[in-house]
């Protein structure tokens, strides 16, 4: 895996949110999922900046749906995880697990 292929912490969180939401992964539920599960407040601009970067890397794809009235006639942009994104996520999680190996005793004291 090349150096640039590793995912940042927030990139992993956003990818996991997209993975969990399946067919309903667009800005509002992604942001809410991140807040509900991590307790971390994420501005919509930061979420989209990360989604755009992940799409640029080929880890996710997106499509724009029809405009809806409750959004003032504006369209939703749905995101899907691509196989490359899933692989990058697995590799990043694997890297963290490898780094954690043997730290169980230290971890339990902290």
């Amino acid at each position, binding site marked *: 895996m090349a150096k640039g292929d590793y995912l940042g912490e927030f990139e992993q969180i956003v990818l996991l949110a997209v993975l969990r939401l399946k067919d309903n992964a*667009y*800005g*509002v539920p992604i*942001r809410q999922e991140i807040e509900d599960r991590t307790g971390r407040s994420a*501005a*919509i*601009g*930061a979420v*989209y*900046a990360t989604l*755009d970067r992940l799409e640029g890397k080929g880890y996710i794809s997106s499509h*724009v749906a029809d*405009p809806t*009235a*409750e*959004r*003032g006639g*504006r*369209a*939703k*942009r749905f995101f899907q995880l691509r196989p490359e994104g899933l692989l990058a996520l697995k590799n990043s999680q694997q890297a963290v697990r490898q780094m954690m190996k043997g730290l169980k005793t230290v971890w339990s004291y902290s």
Partner: protein
Amino acid sequence: MIKPPLAALSLLYVFLPEQERETIPGDLIEEFQLQQSPSWFWRQVLLSLGDLAWLGMKRSPGRTILAMLAGYLAMASAVMATFKVWGLLHGPQSMLAMILVELIGGFFCATLGGYLAARISRGSGINGIIGLCLFSVVMGVVSLATEPLWNEVAIMCAFVPGVLLGGYLRARQARS
């Protein structure tokens, strides 16, 4: 549908990149129906613009610094020229008159600086504008060593909204 603050929505719309002009405002309007708090909406808009500015600064730091310095130089030159001309035309003035000149003249000079900074920056220019606002505040704090506090506060009250207006005008011009 409950309408969100129009000024916040326009601000966001003007500075957003082309591909996000439908989605980000749409998401915020959808969430606003549940939150129903104008302050929440404003906070989200300002945070999103801050994120966009930070992203722009990281992508092209050299251009952001150039935009910031050029904007500040234009603004400072225009302010000095305004004071010079005002002094020549009207002679010594009372403190109130000086504050008014500083506020009104400073606002228009800052608009010029903001416009120039946004023009030099890439994209919507938000990185140059936010950079110029921060730089102006830093220079204002540095000037406290030689200038009275009221003077710096008056300048900041005029400069920051002026810079934002200049950036807004440039972004609108770039869109049309």
